[in-house]
């Protein structure tokens, strides 16, 4: 049998951990068996219940567990489309330089495109204050114990922030490479920021996030000469998880690669304006498709 992981020892360890989880989950299942409360019904399909004995019945629902979040996300997405907005969900580990990269980006684009920011952190208003210092409107969501932003919170933040039409809204998610992957906020793209001071194997350590992202920004590349970070290897790992992921390498400090990133933003922003009602010419009035 061929090795199904990347070949490094760490990959092997993860598989063992994975299998351990499974064994564990099963035994846990037994520990929490509530069959004593269900003696009348047994383990078999409840459809077999004798009528009159109980009113229990089976209901097929086939719904996503996060169906509620997805409904809120769809509502957000409709709102963004109606307003011709580009909305980006920025995800990373804590300390990847997300806020620094964001403030540099805002400074570069704020005179060109209307911008706003939603900041997600468990506590403090620090990041929103750093953003507001650039002159760009920002709103902080403190999730308390929550490890991610959800679409409902973002919907409420929109009511307060009231971003203008044809703008770019950056949502800086809680620093966490695990949970935010599962929660659609209604964004156009998830952007995963990975700093070169982290391990180059993060894309395979946290594959769900890199699978969910459309763009990977490798940040702090001005530090590369001082590190053993293998850029190509990191990109290769990201493509194993997501063969379509786009990659840009940037440094907010030296400015290297920033022009590519800004150009990416301009092009994405332009594409959102295509077909947006108020951007069509006046002599061809068209009913907006709601």
């Amino acid at each position: 049998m061929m090795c199904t992981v990347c070949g490094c020892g760490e990959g092997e360890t993860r598989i063992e951990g994975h299998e351990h989880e499974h064994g564990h989950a099963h035994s846990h299942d037994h520990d929490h068996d509530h069959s004593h409360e269900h003696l009348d019904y047994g383990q078999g399909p409840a459809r077999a219940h004798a009528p009159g004995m109980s009113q229990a019945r089976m209901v097929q629902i086939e719904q996503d567990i996060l169906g509620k979040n997805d409904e809120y996300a769809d509502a957000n997405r409709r709102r963004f489309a109606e307003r011709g907005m580009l909305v980006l969900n920025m995800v990373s580990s804590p300390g990847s330089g997300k806020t620094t990269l964001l403030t540099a980006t805002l400074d570069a684009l704020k005179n060109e495109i209307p911008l706003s920011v939603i900041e997600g952190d468990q506590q403090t208003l620090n990041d929103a204050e750093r953003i507001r210092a650039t002159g760009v409107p920002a709103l902080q969501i403190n999730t308390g114990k929550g490890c991610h932003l959800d679409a409902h919170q973002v919907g409420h933040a929109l009511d307060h922030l009231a971003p203008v039409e044809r703008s770019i809204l950056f949502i800086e998610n809680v620093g966490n490479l695990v949970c935010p992957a599962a929660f659609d906020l209604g964004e156009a793209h998830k952007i995963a920021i990975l700093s070169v001071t982290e391990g180059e194997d993060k894309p395979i350590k946290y594959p769900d996030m890199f699978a969910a992202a459309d763009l990977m920004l490798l940040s702090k590349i001005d530090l590369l000469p001082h590190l053993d970070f293998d850029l190509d290897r990191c990109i290769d790992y990201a493509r194993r998880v997501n063969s379509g992921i786009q990659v840009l390498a940037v440094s907010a400090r030296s400015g290297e690669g920033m022009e590519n990133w800004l150009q990416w933003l301009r092009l994405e922003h332009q594409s959102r304006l295509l077909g947006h009602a108020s951007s069509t010419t006046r002599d061809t009035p068209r009913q907006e498709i709601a």
Partner: protein
Amino acid sequence: MHEMSLCEGLLQVLETEAQKQGFQRVKQIWLEVGELAGVEIDALRFSFDVVIRGSLAEQARLNIERPPGKAWCMHCSTTVTVRQRFDACPDCGSYQLQVTSGDQMKIKELEVE
């Protein structure tokens, strides 16, 4: 840690369905949580026990199916089974795989009264 949010999401769906389909109690729940869904089953069960307290699903039995990850291998033009998102194709070793299933988190069926 988002297993708690998943359980809250699950409970919201149950409450909505209870109104729509007219039931008062949920006795059993069948979930399908793919092996690539990034969900820790232990944590999910733990959170479930906490979240359902005092709800219509109090003491409900949670059954979890774990369908394996499936991916389309572009080289072999066939569907293969993968354990992780970064797995190579078990037949040809290529990483040109597109995950096609196994990342779902679905509520399949309920036993209610």
